[in-house]
């Protein structure tokens, strides 16, 4: 357990319209489970942890699965704090969810700390028959919005499920300034006592 303390913790938010598939992606990624019947909307914000190593270095991801429903908007200012990266998710079989991304990008801009990276994900890529958003469109939007990456995923078939997380972590760790400010804020590491509000895991 002791080694846990020395691992950098990254905070990644999942946002996007209700029903886009954020929770499904996260559950597939963290627990490798999928329930096609499930249609439960997330309440407020759920929390998951996952360890991931990029370039041979281990990171702990604190993944915040936020509710897409409009009524939880009041919560948004409480979870953006100190987030290193934001994954924006839309549903490729739902054009409206794609069009709504503009608004979500705006939310990121007004809430996230400066320098936080964004990543665009088109979910449910297995639903080829119902596809209403082309891959190119997603790619274009990601580029326009300055995302560090874009991909389509399927939580059902597991396709690309790890990709967004690996890539966003990779992008985050290339920004040392973001990493240091972020970890400090989250009170994870400093053992040197220089920080007044240190980690509390020791109690």
């Amino acid at each position, binding site marked *: *357990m002791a080694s*846990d303390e020395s691992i950098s*913790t990254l*905070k990644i938010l999942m946002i996007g319209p209700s029903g886009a598939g954020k*929770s499904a992606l996260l*559950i597939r990624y963290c627990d490798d*489970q999928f*329930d096609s*019947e*499930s249609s*439960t909307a*997330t*309440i*407020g*914000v*759920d*929390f998951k*942890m996952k*360890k991931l190593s990029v370039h041979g270095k281990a990171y702990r991801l*604190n993944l*915040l*699965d936020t509710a897409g429903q409009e*009524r*939880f908007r*009041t*919560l948004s*200012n*409480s*979870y953006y*704090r*100190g987030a290193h990266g934001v994954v924006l998710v839309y549903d490729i079989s739902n054009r409206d969810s794609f069009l709504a991304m503009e608004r979500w990008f705006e939310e990121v801009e007004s809430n996230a700390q400066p320098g936080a990276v964004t990543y665009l994900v088109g979910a449910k890529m297995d639903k080829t028959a119902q596809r209403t958003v082309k891959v190119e469109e997603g790619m274009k939007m990601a580029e326009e919005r300055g995302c560090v990456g874009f991909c389509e995923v399927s939580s059902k078939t597991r396709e690309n499920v790890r990709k967004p997380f690996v890539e966003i972590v990779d992008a985050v760790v290339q920004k040392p300034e973001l990493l240091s400010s972020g970890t400090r*804020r*989250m*009170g*994870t590491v400093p053992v040197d*006592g220089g*920080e*007044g*509000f*240190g*980690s*509390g*895991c*020791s*109690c």
Partner: protein
Amino acid sequence: MASGKDTAREHEQDLSTILSTEERVELTLLIANITELMRKQIADTFDASVTSAKKPQQALHITDKNPNVDVNKTHEESEEEEKARKLREKREKELSAPKMLELRKDSLDFFDKWRESVISRVGTAVNNSKETVQEQKETASVDATPNSAPPAEPKVIRSNTNIEEADAALIELYPPTSTALYSLQKDKRILLLHSMLLLLLSLEHYIGHSRVLLLHISSSLHLPLHVLTEQEIKVAQGLLEAAKHMSGSEETQKRSDENKVARRWKVGLAGVAGATVIGVTGGLAAPLVAGAIGTIMGGLGLGATTAAGLLGALAESGVIVGSLFGAYGGRMTGKMMDAYAKEVEDFGFLPLKGSKHREPLPEDRRLRVTIGISGWLTQKEDIITPWRALGKESEVFALRWELEALTKLGSSLESVVKSAAWTVAKKEIIARTIFASLMDALWPIALLKVSKVVDNPFSVAKNRADKAGLVLADALINKAQGERPVTLIGYSLGARLIYSCLMSLAERRAFGLVESVVLMGTPAPSDAAVWRAMRSVVSGRLVNVYSENDYILAFLYRTSAIQFGVAGLQEAQDVPGIENIDVSEMVSGHLRYQYLVGSILEKIGFEDVDVEEVAREEETLALLEKEEEKEQEKKQGDSVDPEKEAAEMEKDVKKQTDQTLMQRAAETLHLGK
């Protein structure tokens, strides 16, 4: 790691069995709204455009009586508007000072961190994929419109008069946030409150902010305050009882060693999210322990596993419970304080229940701590007596500090007040009735002659109060109280001590440690900058109790920096979130506070007051007043030379002080045997 997380995950499956999806949504939103409100209140403390003066109740007192200590005296006649503008400018200037901006940022940062941990903790508890799916399927048809039901029992609570009063105070102090949850059955609402208490405790601390959040929730759920305090007591008992069955001594030792280092600066919160913490320690789960908690907390409606799940790691480690109650690192009684005692002559916490030589009994332990601090002593029992009025809802300690200095001050004060010179002077002052003159040091000559009797003891004791305040701040930062919120109450120099303590906490950014503070007759500035700083480290109520008739305080404080005002004589102005309570009618003089602690606390709607004790206090005061009257009459006839009187008094004081100290020494010897 993974196994730890899984254990935590399994435990989380409980709020969903208590509440329907829609209700869980409501709960999340309620917490979001309340914390938003709390954040706004903190931000308002630092907002120049918001002042405390707008409350109608207080506006009555302000109108014309107030001395314009904050503004230059020559501006007294200027137009209202100009005055307001000037004040505003002054505030803006004060607030834009880098020091203030930093304090604002840090206190909001601390709050945000706490809020994030609460919201994620609640989030993990309300969201559970597997459970939810099933539950939704089952209840989808039944609970389709759970909230459209009319309020089931809106006024049932209002049957008992006593309780109703507590409610009114609660609602006034923590206005309810609207939520559909209040239409639930009463026992379900209680269960909800109980679950929230356990959830907040699972963050492994119970800081001031958490308590305030629960107060808001109680008020929003239309539950009377006593429900919450009862829950707190039961949970405290349950935890301690269960802790007996938990974890061996090995872990205890290790923990306590770790804490020696870690605790030092651990003012902050437990990790970014409760789940993180649980992930670390969650693997230790013992079903037996869960059983213990369940049995003890049974009757509250939660099953053993459910309760243990909400409590997270707290249900699995006696050590964590121990640190919640301050068993490691520091503690309220015992040796740790010796280290501090070096700096200040004597300093210690005396439990009102039980003895300081023994660990407090589990049934006397509470989830909250209250510390009462006396301002001067005429007999050594005065350290404890005034605080008997505090109820049993919180673990009450009296602070013992600087017995000698306080005894000396007490006897000097008493003799001055009884002196002929004071009687004469008081008449003169009352005849003038202009309060401002108190500040202008136009003191009757006769009085100034006896001043030497009391000036020195006062300045000595004031000095010591400032030092002892720093020591108290140290003790709190080192978690002598455990992870529990502390309420501080003090009068006279005791209040000065608290002032010094809070200023030190603010400087050291130790937020969330102090829940509420009541200062009575405080010999400290009433200046906005000071009170803003104090406000930032108090999560709940910050009450300034003052009396415009407190001539003694004005007299004593006359040599200090009165240009910043005197909190014990007037309102602390222009800072939102500070309650100024005028007790001019009750408090005819500084020496009254000692006997009025209970009555004043009752008046301000303080939550833990023992009504019977207050009645006793009032009797004592009535007796005392009669006696004093008699004595006054006796003295009326003979006119004494102030010089001579002063000399006489000095002798008296010395004699009395010596006596008290001798007594104490004798007792110590006796105990030593």
